[in-house]
């Protein structure tokens, strides 16, 4: 049986850990390194750090947080937020990232996916997709933190990303993000059952049962969540214990 990974997402603005709803509206929920450490102790399988400022001038500050975390937290770390060039990737890796997540730049310049895969290995290249569910039930990819529609269908784009060398897909539902109302199971299943690489599902986890649904109904390979952990609705360990009791292979 495949084991499933639980991955908290930490969005960082300056020195603060932030959480939004539908990818906007920012609420300060604490300090990033303290949260990273706590989640590591609680059994997080990996961490995702997103730089919400994502500007050239503030990059150092964010990467210092990544570096300090890397000194104590010995699980894979994915770093994302405004990554545009191979130089950006190299700096992030040097600071302690194992994988890089790219959304906007991957759509604007898809060659970055193969450049990163060829230079650093596919395992390092996580293509991040932020997806809006339309009123007619169809899906569309967005860039720039959920602000700019692209006209791209997530499955079409995911398949293209795989061809270009993506190692994993980070799939976020904009509609569900921050709502604690559950994952978009249709969206997850659409992608996971049609691409040969691992898919990390994100957006909407509010209780333990949501994780089980995403695995059993959505076939997600990994689950990413923030609100549920940041707002202490459940602890990582509790979620993992519950999943194990449901017969899911997971690291305890």
């Amino acid at each position, binding site marked *: 049986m495949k*084991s499933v990974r639980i991955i908290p997402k930490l969005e960082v603005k300056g020195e603060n850990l932030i959480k939004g709803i539908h990818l906007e509206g920012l609420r300060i929920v604490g300090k990033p390194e303290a949260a990273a450490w706590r989640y590591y102790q609680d059994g997080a399988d990996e961490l995702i750090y997103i730089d919400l400022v994502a500007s050239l001038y503030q990059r150092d500050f964010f990467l210092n947080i990544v570096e300090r975390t890397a000194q104590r937290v*010995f699980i894979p770390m994915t770093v994302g937020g405004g990554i545009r060039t191979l130089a950006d990737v190299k700096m992030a*890796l040097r600071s*302690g990232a*194992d994988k890089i997540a790219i959304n906007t730049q991957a759509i604007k310049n898809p060659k970055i996916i193969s450049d990163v895969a060829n230079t650093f290995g596919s395992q390092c290249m996580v293509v991040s997709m932020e997806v809006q569910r339309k009123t007619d039930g169809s899906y569309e990819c967005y860039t720039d933190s959920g602000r700019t529609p692209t006209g791209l269908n997530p499955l079409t784009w995911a398949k293209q990303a795989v061809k270009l060398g993506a190692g994993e897909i980070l799939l976020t539902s904009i509609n569900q993000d921050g709502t604690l109302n559950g994952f978009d199971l249709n969206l997850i299943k659409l992608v996971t059952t049609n691409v*040969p690489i*691992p898919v990390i599902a994100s957006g909407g986890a509010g209780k333990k049962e949501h994780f089980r649904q995403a695995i059993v109904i959505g076939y997600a*390979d990994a689950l990413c969540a923030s609100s549920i952990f940041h707002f202490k609705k459940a602890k990582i360990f509790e979620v993992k214990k519950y999943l194990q009791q449901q017969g899911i292979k*997971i690291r305890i």
Partner: protein
Amino acid sequence: MKKNKIIIIIDYGLGNLNSVVRALVATGAIPRISSDLQELAAAEKLILPGVGAFEEGMKGLKKRNLIKLIKEHVQKGKYLMGLCLGMQLLFQESEEFGLHKGLSLINGKVKKLELKDKSYKIPHVGWNQLIRPKGQNWKDTILKNVKNKEMAYFVHSYAPFPKNKEFILAQTEYGGEIFCSVVAHKNVMGTQFHPEKSADVGQRILKNFLKLP
């Protein structure tokens, strides 16, 4: 004694060595990254890290004249641990992108994971169990304080298959394929997973390597 804490990580141009350094620092080791022949020759313990393709790995070692050095280090009875690609390089050959010769410190081949269950994805990414084979004892090994079936973090598409079953310290199952996840033959050992990314169990294994007499 300070000297006992020094572990040298072989720099042969592949992979981000900083994570290995950080993880070793946390165990109390004094890690150094080096490709300097004199420094490496004087080392008591060497780590061969690596992320990437087998052929590139061997090319990197060849380019820096490290193959002879590593073999002499092992001949002298000094400890060598390979991590991930580094473990694969210990073997005779690999099928990755053609057939390529390895260090031949351990008999066996590196082959692509042949999954019986096609719903499993390649590469093998994530946490998986380290299983103690029947008849194997972990006492006095780098797995001495690891519980059977504890999980470690894997990222790979190829895996080693040692000819001598007694060198298989731990094995792991993925998609119906069972491969060697920890190999040990006297002073040469290796892990297919990344101990520097395997949380507490990884820390214990690195610490055990540090503490080898």
